[in-house]
Structure formats: structure tokens, C-alpha cells
């Protein structure tokens, strides 16, 4: 009912159109009637549709409105429909006239036909409207389908019609709905569904409709069908007369049914009308008569024989139940059917678009084509649309809305998720989190804002304004003015100039620094002279400067004097200290004396030369002066050297600090360096190098005389190699005795090792292998002698010495040398033998290889000692080629000589060796055993463990105090201890110990009670493993164990707030 009320508006608007239309339509129909005596129903339809087409456009709009309005009252409508549907159609059918009567407009009753048509037309377009479909479905129980088969236009249906119906009668609506349903069925071509429709169960209908909508067929099919229809329809009608169902599940069935229904419902008048309409259609014209006849017969038979047909139908169709109600309904319908001519709603067949177009066909084919095309699209689109579902009850709807809204809000709020996660997981939070965006105000901003407030400010401002400096524009202007004068080149030039001056300044500075470092007096003097000369040249205007310089010079002299006097008088620190010490021993006194002496000497020298030089400096400016200066310098040097040499012997006598070895070495080094500097200086100055060494030792002569080859020095404990003068032989000889007495033995030992890098090949300048004296002399204990250092260093030295001999001395000398060496080695051997005798066990080296050093480079290490003889010969053989290989310069005879010598040596060696071999009996193991004698570690450990276990084991302690609680005296039996005095100590059973069956460890079972207080039972919460926890606890926090930054980081609280800072809640930053 609600629906009716709502649909009032559109109806009224339609009414006028309909009226006009009706008038026209009626006219036409009448004329058609006249033409054809008996018209097929189809024709009537066609006729009816023709005018409707014109109306459609108008209808459409109204429908739209209806849609809008309809949405709301839908539920109620549904309910109504449902109710109606639930009951028999008969009721409705009966009710129909009453309702019609109730309706205000008579016209509308008259319009019924039109309305139907309208509705058919309109439906087509408004398929999508859920309203229509829905309501229809629910009301389908009134299967008042019309038999207008040719018009299978399910696509073209109007809601508007519905609306009208609503106004008029519910039944009309129902009719329409059934029509609709049938149309759809037609499309579907399923008999089952038809039946369902007929059953009139609202739910099912809805379903069917939905399905149908979804399956809506395109126009093409409709067209095809429509073309086929006319012919079919006749046959169908015939069949209808017999039975609808028999025809099979084709479209025809549907149409048949429709027909049946229509017939049932429609009165004769209507049929006539249809017949008229049919006659209008060209196709059917021929058959019309026969058709109508059959129809009429059928109709007559229908009333009586419907019930008979129904079972047949059922039999044919799958759903048996469907038919009977339908049939019944149809009957009822027919009874209640409006007898009015205009009540053509019964004839509301499926209106096809083609039906609407057919009348146009006659007018213009081109137009029609275009129309068809457009209509095709329309039809196809409309068929695709689904009917909307019914609006839910408000409560449900609102709940859904709320849910949706909640989802929305959730979504919105979820945007904070990342932020919240970050905050939650942050190690450190400093509030406020969102710092207010600090505006960094530029000076420009400030300047723009500035307004002078005080007097001073205003005064300044005024001045600025006057000077055109207030404001950016002014400043820019002045700047541009200034810059205008300069071209680009000029600017570049300026810059280049600046850079150049800077560079120059830097260089000058660097040079000055370098010059300032030069300490040579002579250089200074020369410089001074040059400067003076320059000044002279430049003119006399530099007088003042010169005076200044003179003054400076004087001052310098003064200072130097002072220094000299101070240094070598008793005024020095050391001297004073010495004085204060009071009584001095002889050495100290001598030192002091020496110092004073030296001071005196110096002073004398300075005085003598200083006065002279000063006078010279002042007076002489000539060239010769330089010469003299140089000469004097050389003299000085010479004197100094002499001095030093002279002083040395003196010093050597004393036992002062200077007399100690390292001091001596240091002094020697200093001296040497000084000498060198002096030499360099002399060379530089182009003077003759005084050979003061000449008169001294003869060894020094070659040193200075031959400045070629590698110069190797050894002043202290270290040997230095320098390019330059060849080392003097004597030097080497001199330090040979410095070696410890056992050097040779060490050497031997090292050479004994196979593949020792000290073999001649590795030597820098060696030409011949070292004649190895004896190899049986092993170190006293292989574990005690450090093999690395000495072994490497000592032989090289020796060999170097040898090399020197080999290269530069005559063979005679060489032999002499050899002999001497031999002697030496023999002596050493003897000494060693003595030692051996002293030591109880001679430690024969098991590891040493008797093949010796000579074969080291060639022969691999041999495990067994070959006989001495063989070894000797092998060595002799091997030595010669080796020598040849090594030294290409050396003559063959030289090497021969050497080898001979070596052979001699070997002979001596072997003699000695025989002795030592005999003694070797001990093995390394024994040595080790001796070394660790008395170390019973394992036993001790086991014992300790046993004790520990015993201590921890449970035991009983008798605490009985003797003499208490018992009788004393002689002859008493010793009674067993009373149980109360036996104290049981619950220890740890040895078998339950942690170290039980673990021989190598002792695990203490004692528990530290004090520490236990601080132990945790379980792992505290945030930690996931014991290790993690322990690590954290082990890590100290304080400043003592951490860097400053580490401490700060470690102790920084998680949340930091600044007092007095407003923390505002998080804000969306857009």
C-alpha cells in the first residue's frame, strides 16, 4: 500500500499522456478491427505497442522518478506482495474490481490496456530497477500471462505501468509481474522455471528473476524469435488448445502458456481485440482466421477443461505442483478480469523492441535501421543490468553503516601504526616528540621587521637612510655602483696578483727558516760580508742598519764569550754540584781538572782567535780574508782532531764513566761523525784533507785512501753497512777477539744444521765457503742455547772477515791468516775438550749431522753419520766447485789453495771429532726426563682430587669430650661414642660430584652462601638466555669502566623530558 501512495505522483502526470494516447490508440484499434474480422492477439499487441512507442520517451522520465521514490517504500511493498502472493490469486482477482472502483480516475481503468503496454515498454528500460523485478517476482502467483506470443519482448517493460497499476489495483501489478516473469521465462526457454513462476512462491520468483536477469539474452535472439513467432504462434495456439506442455520445452511453451493464461484471464472482448491487433501485423494475416478459430475453440474449452489439462502439463514438466495453482489462478483471473476494452493488461505480452519498431518499418528503412542499432545497444545494456536487492530494514542497514564507519575509522587510525610502533620500540624518547618547527629567522627578516624605537636607533636609522644604506635595495645599489668600475679582467688580475704575493711570501718564509737552521759560523760570516758589501753598493744610506749590525755582532761576540766562560768555569751545574759534594775522589777531581783545562783551552783559543777575527772582521773586507778564514778553519779542525787524539790515551787511563765501554763506543762514534763532518766541510771548502791518520796507526791508511766499496763499520755492538770506504782489515781483526770464547762453537753448531741460511751462498760478498773447523762441538744443551741470534750473526762476521782476507790480501798473507786461524781454532778446541772433561756428560748433539756445513748446501740432511774419511773427501770435492760457482773473480788456483787449506783443517777436525763421537750416548728423552725430574704432576693432581673428595664426603664426627660423662681410670673399656655426640656432616657423595669420573678436573662442590644471596633463581624477564643475562651483568656502567660517551649512552634514561616544556599530543603532520 505504501507503494501505491508513493506512486501517486507519477501516475497523475502520466494520466494526461495516457488519455491522449488512449484516444488515439482506441481509434486505431477500432479501424483495425474493422479491417480484420478475427484478429490474432498478436496483432492487437502490435497495435497497442505502436502508439506506446511514442509515449515511451515520456514514460521514461516518470519512471525515473518512480525509481527514486520507490526505493524507500520497497520493504512494505514487498511485504504486501508477499501477503498477496501467499494467498490465492483468486482473492486478488476478486479484489480487483473493487479496487478499480475505488480508484479515483475512471480514465485509468480505461487506460488499463495502455498502461499495460506502457509498462511493457517501460520495463524494458527499467530492467535494472530492482523495484520492478522484485515486486513482480513476489506477485507472480497470479499467472495472468497473455497469449500474445509474437511479442516476446521481455526487454521492453515499463515500471510506469506498474506504478499505474499500483494506483489502480494490485492485481494489475501482479499481472504485469507475471508478464514480466513470463517474458523472462521465454528468454530462458525453460519449462521448469515457468512452472515455478506459476507456483507463485515469492522467493522462488525472486531467484528466477535474478537468474534470468543475469542471463538476459541479447536482442538478436529476440529478433530472431520475433520473426519466427508469428508462424509459431498459430501452431502454438493450436497446441494450446490441446495442451501447452506437449509442445516441449521451447520458447513456444512459454508462449503457449502465456496464451493459456491470457485466455484464461481474458474475456472474449479482449481476445477480439487481440485478434484485431494481430490482423494489423502483416505476418500473421494469412493464418489469422484459422488461428482465431482455434483460439476461440480453445478458449471455450479452457473454462471447462482446464483442470483436465493441468495434469498433462505436470506430466510434461518436471514440476508437477507448479501447474495446478497456476491454472487455477488463471481462471480466477479471467473471472475478475476487467471487461473494459482498455483493460489490456491481460494482453501485456513480452513487449519486444522489435514490436515497437515494426510499425516504423513501413515508413523508412534507413530510420528503422538506425533505430534498431541504437535499440540494440539499449537492449543489450539493459539485459545485463541486475535488479538491485531490496533495501534492508533500517536497523540492519544502520548496523551495516556503523560497521562500515568503524572500518573507516579503524583504517584512519591505522595510519598511526608506524608512528606508534616506532615510539614503542624506541630506545630513547625525548619529549616533545614533534618539535615545533623552529623558524630560523634570517637577518633579512629581522631587518625587514625592524623599527627604530629608541632615540639612538632612530638616529642611526636616519643616518643610514641618508647614506642610502637602509634597506636592501640601497645596499645593493651602492654595491653595484662600486662594482661597476671594475671589469671582469680587472677583477681576475687583482685576484692573480694577490695569489702571487701570497705565494712569494710563503716561499720567502720557508727559505728564511731553512737559512736560519744553518749553524756554520763561516757561512754566517760570509753572509754578513756579502750583506755588508751589498749595503755598500747600495749606498751609504744604510749606515744605521750597518751600525745596528755591528752592534749586533758585538753582542753576539759578547754572548759567545759569556757562554764560553760560563760553560767551562766552575759555574756550570755539574761543576757546582761537584763542588758542593766536598771531598772528591781522585777520578772526580781529575774530571773537574780536565773540565777546567778544557775550558781554559777554549778560552785561550777564543781569546786568541776571537780578538784576531774581530779585528779582521772589522778591518778586512777583501777576498784573501776568506781564504785566511778558511785556512784558519782548517787549522782549527786539525787542531781539534789532534786534541781529541791526544786526549784519548789520557782518558783511557782513567776509570771514569768515560772509560766504560759504551761511553767509549759512543765517543768513538761521535768522533767518527765529527770527523766525517769535518771532512765533508773541508771537501766543500775545497781544502786539502789533512791525513792526520797517517802518522797514527797504519791501519787507518787504507780507510781514507780507498773510498770505494761498501763501508762497514762496527763501533759498538752493531755493525753498520754504508757505501763508501772499504772496511779496513785491521778493524775487523780488531774486533775478532771481542767474540766470546765459544763463538766458534756456536758457529759450528749453526753450520751443522742442514740447509742453514748461513751457507756461503747467502753471504753478501762471500766468495768462498768458510773452512769449517770442527763440527762435533755441540752446544752444552740444545734447549738452553738460543740458536737463532748468535748462529746467524756470528758466522757472518767470521765469514766477512774471511772474505776480506780472500779478496784483498796476497796468498801469502792468506796462508798466514789461515794458520793463525787454525791455531786459534785449535786453541778453542782444546779449551772445549777441557770443558768436556769437566762436564760429566758430554752432550753430543744427536740432531747434528756429521756431514757438516760444507755439504749443507748440496747434500740433503742424512740421518746417519757417515764415516769421517768419506765425509772429508766429500767435503773436499764439494768445496772446489762450490768455490768456483760462488766467486767468478777468484782464480782457480786461489780456490785450489783454499781447498787445500781446508783439507788440512779438516784433518785436524776429524782428529778432534773422533773423541766427541765416542761420548754421545744420551738421548733427548733423557734430557727431558732430567729436566723434569721429580715432577709428578699427575700423581699430585690425583692426590689433590682425592683429598678434595674426601673432605667433601659425608662423614661422622665424634664430638665426645674425653673425661666427660664417663668414668675414668685404668681398666676401663673404651665405650663406643654416644650417638648424640656423633655429628653427621652431610657432605657431597663422591659419586654425585660434578667431577666424578672426570680425571682431569676438580669441580668444587662448596657453595658460597654470601654470593648465593645475590644469585637469581630464574632468568629475569627481558633476557632470553643465561649468557645474555650474564653478559649484561658483567658489563659495568660506571665512568671508571667506560668512555665518557659510552657512560652517557649507557645511562641515558628512556624517556627524557625537559622541565617546563609543554608536551602536546601527537599531531597529524600534513
Amino acid at each position: 500500500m505504501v507503494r501505491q501512495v508513493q506512486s501517486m505522483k507519477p501516475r497523475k502526470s502520466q494520466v494526461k499522456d495516457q488519455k491522449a494516447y488512449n484516444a488515439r490508440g482506441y481509434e486505431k484499434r477500432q479501424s483495425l478491427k474493422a479491417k480484420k474480422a478475427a484478429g490474432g492477439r498478436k496483432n492487437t499487441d502490435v497495435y497497442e505497442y505502436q502508439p506506446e512507442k511514442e509515449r515511451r520517451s515520456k514514460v521514461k522520465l516518470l519512471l525515473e522518478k518512480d525509481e527514486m521514490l520507490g526505493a524507500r517504500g520497497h520493504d512494505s511493498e514487498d511485504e504486501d506482495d508477499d501477503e498477496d502472493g501467499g494467498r490465492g490469486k483468486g482473492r486478488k482477482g476478486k479484489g480487483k474490481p473493487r479496487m478499480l472502483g475505488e480508484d479515483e480516475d475512471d480514465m485509468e481503468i480505461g487506460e488499463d490496456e495502455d498502461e499495460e503496454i506502457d509498462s511493457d515498454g517501460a520495463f524494458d528500460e527499467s530492467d535494472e530497477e530492482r523495484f520492478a523485478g522484485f515486486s513482480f517476482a513476489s506477485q507472480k502467483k497470479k499467472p495472468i500471462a497473455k497469449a500474445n506470443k509474437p511479442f516476446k519482448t521481455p526487454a521492453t517493460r515499463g515500471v510506469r505501468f506498474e506504478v499505474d497499476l499500483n494506483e489502480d489495483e494490485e492485481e494489475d501489478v501482479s499481472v504485469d509481474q507475471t508478464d514480466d516473469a513470463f517474458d523472462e521465462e521465454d528468454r530462458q526457454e525453460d519449462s521448469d522455471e515457468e512452472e515455478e513462476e506459476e507456483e507463485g512462491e515469492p522467493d522462488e520468483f525472486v531467484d528466477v528473476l535474478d537468474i534470468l536477469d543475469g542471463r538476459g539474452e541479447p536482442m538478436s535472439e529476440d529478433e530472431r524469435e520475433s520473426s519466427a513467432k508469428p508462424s509459431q504462434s498459430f501452431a502454438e495456439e493450436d497446441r494450446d488448445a490441446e495442451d501447452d506442455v506437449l509442445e516441449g520445452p521451447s520458447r513456444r511453451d512459454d508462449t503457449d502458456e502465456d496464451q493459456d493464461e491470457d485466455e484464461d484471464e481474458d474475456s472474449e472482448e479482449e481476445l477480439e481485440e487481440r485478434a484485431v491487433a494481430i490482423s494489423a501485423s502483416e505476418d500473421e494475416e494469412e493464418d489469422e482466421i484459422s488461428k482465431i478459430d482455434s483460439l476461440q475453440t480453445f478458449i471455450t474449452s479452457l473454462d471447462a477443461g482446464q483442470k483436465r489439462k493441468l495434469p498433462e502439463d505436470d506430466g510434461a514438466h518436471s514440476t508437477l505442483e507448479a501447474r495446478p495453482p497456476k491454472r487455477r489462478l488463471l481462471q480466477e483471473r479471467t473471472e475478475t478480469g476487467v471487461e473494459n476494452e482498455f483493460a489490456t493488461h491481460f494482453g501485456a505480452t513480452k513487449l519486444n523492441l522489435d514490436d515497437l519498431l515494426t510499425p516504423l518499418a513501413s515508413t523508412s528503412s534507413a530510420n528503422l535501421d538506425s533505430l534498431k542499432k541504437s535499440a540494440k545497444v539499449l537492449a543489450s545494456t539493459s539485459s545485463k543490468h541486475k535488479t538491485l536487492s531490496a533495501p534492508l530494514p533500517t536497523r540492519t542497514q544502520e548496523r551495516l553503516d556503523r560497521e562500515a564507519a568503524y572500518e573507516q575509522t579503524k583504517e584512519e587510525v591505522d595510519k598511526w601504526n608506524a608512528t606508534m610502533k616506532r615510539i614503542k620500540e624506541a630506545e630513547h624518547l625525548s619529549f616533545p616528540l614533534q618539535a615545533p618547527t623552529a623558524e630560523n629567522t634570517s637577518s633579512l627578516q629581522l631587518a625587514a621587521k625592524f623599527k627604530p624605537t629608541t632615540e639612538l636607533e632612530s638616529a642611526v636609522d636616519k643616518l643610514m637612510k641618508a647614506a642610502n644604506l637602509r634597506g636592501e635595495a640601497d645596499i645593493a645599489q651602492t654595491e653595484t655602483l662600486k662594482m661597476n668600475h671594475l671589469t671582469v679582467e680587472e677583477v681576475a688580475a687583482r685576484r692573480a696578483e694577490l695569489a702571487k704575493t701570497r705565494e712569494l711570501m710563503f716561499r720567502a718564509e720557508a727559505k728564511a727558516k731553512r737559512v736560519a737552521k744553518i749553524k756554520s759560523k763561516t757561512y754566517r760570516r760570509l753572509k754578513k760580508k756579502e750583506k755588508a758589501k751589498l749595503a755598500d753598493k747600495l749606498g751609504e744610506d744604510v749606515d744605521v742598519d750597518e751600525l745596528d749590525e755591528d752592534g749586533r755582532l758585538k753582542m753576539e761576540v759578547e754572548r759567545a764569550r759569556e757562554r764560553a766562560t760560563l760553560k767551562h768555569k766552575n759555574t756550570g751545574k755539574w761543576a757546582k754540584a761537584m763542588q758542593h759534594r766536598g771531598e772528591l775522589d781522585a777520578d772526580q777531581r781529575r774530571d773537574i781538572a780536565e773540565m777546567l783545562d778544557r775550558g781554559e783551552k777554549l778560552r785561550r783559543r777564543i781569546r786568541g782567535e776571537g780578538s784576531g777575527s774581530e779585528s779582521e772582521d772589522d778591518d778586512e773586507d777583501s777576498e784573501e780574508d776568506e781564504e785566511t778564514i778558511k785556512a784558519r778553519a782548517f787549522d782549527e779542525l786539525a787542531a781539534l782532531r789532534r786534541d781529541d787524539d791526544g786526549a784519548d790515551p789520557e782518558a783511557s787511563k782513567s776509570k771514569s764513566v768515560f772509560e766504560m765501554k759504551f761511553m767509549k763506543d759512543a765517543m768513538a762514534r761521535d768522533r767518527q761523525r765529527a770527523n766525517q763532518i769535518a771532512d765533508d766541510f773541508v771537501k766543500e771548502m775545497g781544502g786539502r784533507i789533512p791525513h792526520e791518520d797517517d802518522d797514527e796507526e797504519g791501519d787507518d791508511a787504507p780507510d781514507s785512501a780507498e773510498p770505494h766499496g761498501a763501508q762497514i763499520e762496527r763501533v759498538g755492538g752493531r755493525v753498520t753497512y754504508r757505501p763508501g770506504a772499504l772496511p779496513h782489515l785491521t778493524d775487523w781483526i780488531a774486533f775478532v777477539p771481542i767474540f766470546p770464547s765459544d763463538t766458534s762453537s756456536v758457529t759450528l753448531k749453526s753450520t751443522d744444521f742442514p740447509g742453514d741460511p748461513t751457507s756461503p751462498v747467502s753471504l753478501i760478498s762471500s766468495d768462498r765457503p768458510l773452512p769449517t773447523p770442527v763440527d762435533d762441538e755441540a752446544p752444552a744443551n740444545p734447549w738452553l742455547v738460543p740458536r737463532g741470534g748468535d748462529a746467524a750473526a756470528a758466522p757472518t762476521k767470521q765469514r766477512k772477515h774471511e772474505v776480506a782476507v780472500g779478496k784483498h790480501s796476497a796468498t801469502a798473507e792468506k796462508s798466514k791468516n789461515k794458520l793463525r786461524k787454525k791455531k786459534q781454532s785449535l786453541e778453542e778446541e782444546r779449551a772445549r775438550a777441557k770443558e768436556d772433561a769437566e762436564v760429566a756428560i758430554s752432550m753430543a748433539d744427536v740432531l747434528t749431522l756429521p756431514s757438516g756445513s760444507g755439504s749443507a748446501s748440496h747434500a740433503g740432511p742424512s740421518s746417519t753419520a757417515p764415516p769421517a774419511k768419506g765425509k772429508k773427501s766429500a767435503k773436499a770435492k764439494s768445496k772446489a766447485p762450490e768455490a768456483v760457482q760462488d766467486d767468478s773473480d777468484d782464480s782457480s788456483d786461489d780456490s785450489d789453495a783454499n781447498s787445500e787449506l781446508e783439507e788440512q783443517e779438516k784433518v785436524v777436525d776429524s782428529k778432534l771429532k773422533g773423541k766427541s763421537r765416542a761420548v754421545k750416548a744420551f738421548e733427548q728423552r733423557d734430557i727431558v726426563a732430567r729436566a723434569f725430574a721429580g715432577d709428578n704432576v699427575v700423581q699430585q693432581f690425583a692426590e689433590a682430587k682425592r683429598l678434595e673428595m674426601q673432605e667433601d664426603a659425608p662423614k661422622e664426627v665424634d664430638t665426645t669430650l674425653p673425661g666427660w660423662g664417663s668414668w675414668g681410670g685404668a681398666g676401663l673399656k673404651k665405650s663406643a661414642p654416644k650417638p648424640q655426640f656423633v655429628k653427621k656432616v652431610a657432605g657431597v657423595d663422591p659419586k654425585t660430584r660434578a667431577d666424578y669420573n672426570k680425571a682431569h678436573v676438580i669441580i668444587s662442590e662448596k657453595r658460597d652462601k654470601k654470593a648465593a644471596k645475590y644469585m637469581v633463581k630464574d632468568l629475569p624477564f627481558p633476557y632470553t638466555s643465561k649468557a645474555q643475562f650474564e653478559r649484561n651483568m658483567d658489563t659495568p656502567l660506571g665512568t671508571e669502566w667506560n668512555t665518557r660517551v659510552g657512560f652517557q649512552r649507557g645511562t641515558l634514561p628512556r624517556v627524557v623530558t625537559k622541565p617546563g616544556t609543554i608536551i602536546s599530543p601527537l599531531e597529524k603532520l600534513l
Partner: protein
Amino acid sequence: MERIFAKPFIGALEGHVDAVECMARQPGTLDMVASGSWDGGLIVHNIIKKSQQMRIDVAHKGKITGITFADSNRLLSCGVDRNVKLWDFRDVDENGAGPSEPRKPLSVFPGKTAFNSIDHHRSDPLFATASNIVQVWDETKSAPISNLTFPTSSETISAVRFNLSESSVLASIGSDRTFTLYDIRTGKAERRVIMQMRSNSLSWSPTFPTSVLLASEDHNLYTFDIRSLTHPTQIYKAHVSAVMSCDWSPTGTHFVSGGWDRTVRIWKEGQGTAPEVYHTKRMQRVMSTLFTADARFVLSGSDDGNLRIWKAKAHEKLGIIDSRERAALEYRERLKEKWKMDAQVSKVSRSRHIPKPVHKAAQLKTTMLEAHRVKEERRRKHTRAGENKPKAERKKVVITEQT
């Protein structure tokens, strides 16, 4: 040591004749706090100076139920006299005592029923009131611009609050044990949760926009994530009587609650037990609590008509702390944290002196709860296996969630 010498109480602001029912802090300031009492008195305190910025003895007839600051110089108050009044608290006499003649409200928004709560939108000139429905008002209009209600509700809404970050989201609590969520954009009540007991107060977290805190009648506080309202994210248990009020710290890491048990408790977010407890002999039921904007102080308004200022951290030193001292403090704090698993350290940090009645009540409560638990256990033991499963504590809270 600091436990011994902690002095959390700073001072009390007097002025109200009756119980302080509601308090509000002016956003963006540290000092302005308004309080309304049962007798209709409205005072705006300057808590830094401990003076009164504005004082109206009878702002409303009957009690003032809600106060909120509208902007920098106006505030809104609502009362049981069915009016919302807009006040200007700015102009003050030279003596600071306020005008001699009673102030007039700038405007009055009449309602149909008594208002229970009011809250102002964070940025827009909107405010929401709670009566039997939630109404959203525009400051410039005398009638509400929208009514928000859950369709089937016949409750009395006791409090309404705007979300601070997501400022269109509203939440309210009602006398029928509900918590309802609204959104003024959709104009709908979106979801409703019915709980075991009614809530007395609610507060949105300032740093976690999805988190809302409810102070419940069942002695507990609950935080809910509004995205899943089926169960609370955390239960905070320590009060021994109904919790009357709660407020988040601006940091969102702590919150304060005041209860019928005459204590103020300061909780750590996510830590459901052992809060800091403040109490004095004279402080009665705490009806309203508030955190200051710098998260350093806590205000409590109680039944005795006083506003009390407390330190948020009991042993915090007021005044300037130089860097070395700060470093030392931080170091000590860190050490305490490091060794908190140690029995003795934790004992010291846990132990609180609380008033005897509260202590007794707590004891009694534990006993009762234990009894409940035991009974439940036994009941379960005597039913068929698997039939009666224990329910998680968190799941017990919410009875139903309505859409």
C-alpha cells in the same frame, strides 16, 4: 635512600567549598587549570603562582560536571542545570581576585537534559557534551549540530572525550557499562562495548592515538586499542576501590588515576601492577586527576575540596640540576634498573607505605580474589574434563561488542 626522602606532595590549592568534580588543563599552557565543584563553583587556577585566575562561586546551579578549555581565553563548563556556559577567564583585576560583580558567561547553550561531561575538539570550534546522548555543538550555535547515539541505548553518558590526535574520533562511557566509539565525520556511533562494570572516566593516549584508558568501577583500569575492542590491551590492578578518574601523561608513558580509596596512583603504561601511590591524611576520595603539560606534576581534586599538586616522580629534585648531578642521577637510576631482579633491590623499590585502611582493603581484596580463584578451580575440577575452561582475565572484561 631516595625512597626515604621522597617528598611528592608540593601543595594544595584551596578555594572550593565542596568536592572537586572535574578539572581541565588548558592545552598549550603549563599553568592554567580549571576546576569545578559540586556546589557549582568554578575556579581557574594558576598552578605555578598557586593563585586563582578566575573564580565564580555559582557558575552553575548544582554541580559542575565538566569543564573544558575552548581556546586561549575561554572555557566551557557544563552542569546538571542543563546548561553549557562559555566563560572568558582572561580579564582579571589588578589585585588578581577577579571582578567584584559576578561574571556573566559569554554564552549559554541550553540543553534538554543534565550534562555529564564536556570536551572540546582539539582544533575546531566544536565541543561534545554527554547527557543521555552525545551531542556535538558548534561554539557559534546555540543548538547542537549533531546528535550521536547508539540506537538501542537508553543509557546516561557519563563522559565523552575527543581523541587527541585523530580529533574527529570520540569516545564515551555510559552508565549502562558501555564504552562507545563515535566519529564525527561519519556522524555515527560506530561501536559499543559492554563491560562487566561501568567506567567512571576515560582518557585518550596522547602518543598512541588508538589507545584509550578507562577507569572502571571494578577497581581496575583498562587500556583498549580501539581497533580491537574485544579485550583490553592491559589491565591495571592496584586500586582497592572504584577508580574515579584517570589521565594520561603527555608523554603517553605514564598515567595517573584517582580512586574512591583516597589514593592517587601513577602507573607506567604497560605495567599493570605496583604503581606509585600518593596519599595524605586529609585527602578524601579523589574525584579528578590531571597530569600537567610538562609531565612533571600531577594534580588531584578530591572530595575535600582541595586541589593537590604532586610530583609525577616522587623523588625528583625540583630546581636546577647541573650536568654532573644529572649524570649521577641517571647512573643511579640505571643501576637500579640493572639490578632490579635482585631480591633486595626489588623489595625496596616495590615497597610502599600506604594507609592502613587501604592496606587492609588490599589484603581483603587479595583474599577474596584468591578465594574466588580457588573456588573456580575446584568447580572446574569437579566438572567434566574440558567442559569448564578457565577464561583469561582479559577476556572476562568485555561482555559483548556491539556493532
